[in-house]
């Protein structure tokens, strides 16, 4: 028996958007991880093969994507702590809203701190 799914959009508050961001960042990190295991495996082929492929990580376009990756990792990790606190801390649900904003500020802040130095390396000013 097939089931017609109900709408997937709900509530529209911090609870929903943190869930959406957690899912998107998680899927993105997963696919990067698959690629990253394969590119690292090239060290077992030859130093030349590894160096040629790793050079592409130092180009402007991929370099910009790396900022997104760092931001995604920071958000996913810190929001994961928030989820654990909601699950295991008696006051977790009371502070889940403010914790989301702390997560967001930290993730954006640390990514911003990392950005100038990284851009200098990949954009060759």
């Amino acid at each position: 028996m097939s089931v017609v799914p109900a709408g997937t959009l709900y509530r529209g508050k911090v609870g929903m958007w943190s869930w959406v961001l957690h899912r998107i960042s998680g899927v993105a990190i997963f696919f990067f991880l698959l690629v990253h295991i394969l590119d690292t495996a090239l060290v077992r082929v030859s130093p030349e093969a590894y160096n040629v492929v790793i050079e592409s990580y130092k180009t402007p376009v991929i370099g910009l994507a790396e900022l997104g990756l760092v931001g995604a990792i920071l958000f996913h990790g810190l929001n994961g702590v928030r989820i654990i606190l909601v699950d295991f801390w008696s006051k977790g649900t009371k502070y889940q809203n403010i914790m989301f904003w702390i997560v967001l500020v930290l993730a954006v802040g640390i990514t911003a701190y990392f950005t100038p130095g990284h851009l200098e390396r990949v954009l060759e000013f």
Partner: protein
Amino acid sequence: MSVQIEIPNSPRKQRVTNWEKYGWLYMRISGPLLIVLIFTHVFVNLFTGEGIKQIDFAFVAGKWADPFWQWWDVAMLWLALIHGTLGMRTVINDYTEKPKLRTALVGTLWSVSGALILLGTLVVFTFDPCPPTSNPDLLPSFCEAIASS
């Protein structure tokens, strides 16, 4: 003749392992470990020194010459890929309606993850930082001492 029936409000007997519970717990145990492992990994490789510019064969060989970083990276590989696979499984379960499609996707997912865990583990532990036929300029500096001895 009477039929023996269970008391209607008796609790459900848990006869099989509750894998969903252990999956849920795994996410919450591996999560904090991955924060330490991956945040340090990103900090050492991208935030310090020359950042992304320093990454090449010699850099990786320099790290993996030390069993500490070999085990660090293998722990990261296993914990992260299983964490990611369980997460992707949740995503597949949320969006697939047909049971056969769901089984096929989750089966493919675990196959790919298993293969990559195996590949990654073999790469780390069979790695040679000084492959004999390679251009010495691409190798870590300690290879010279080994070659001349």
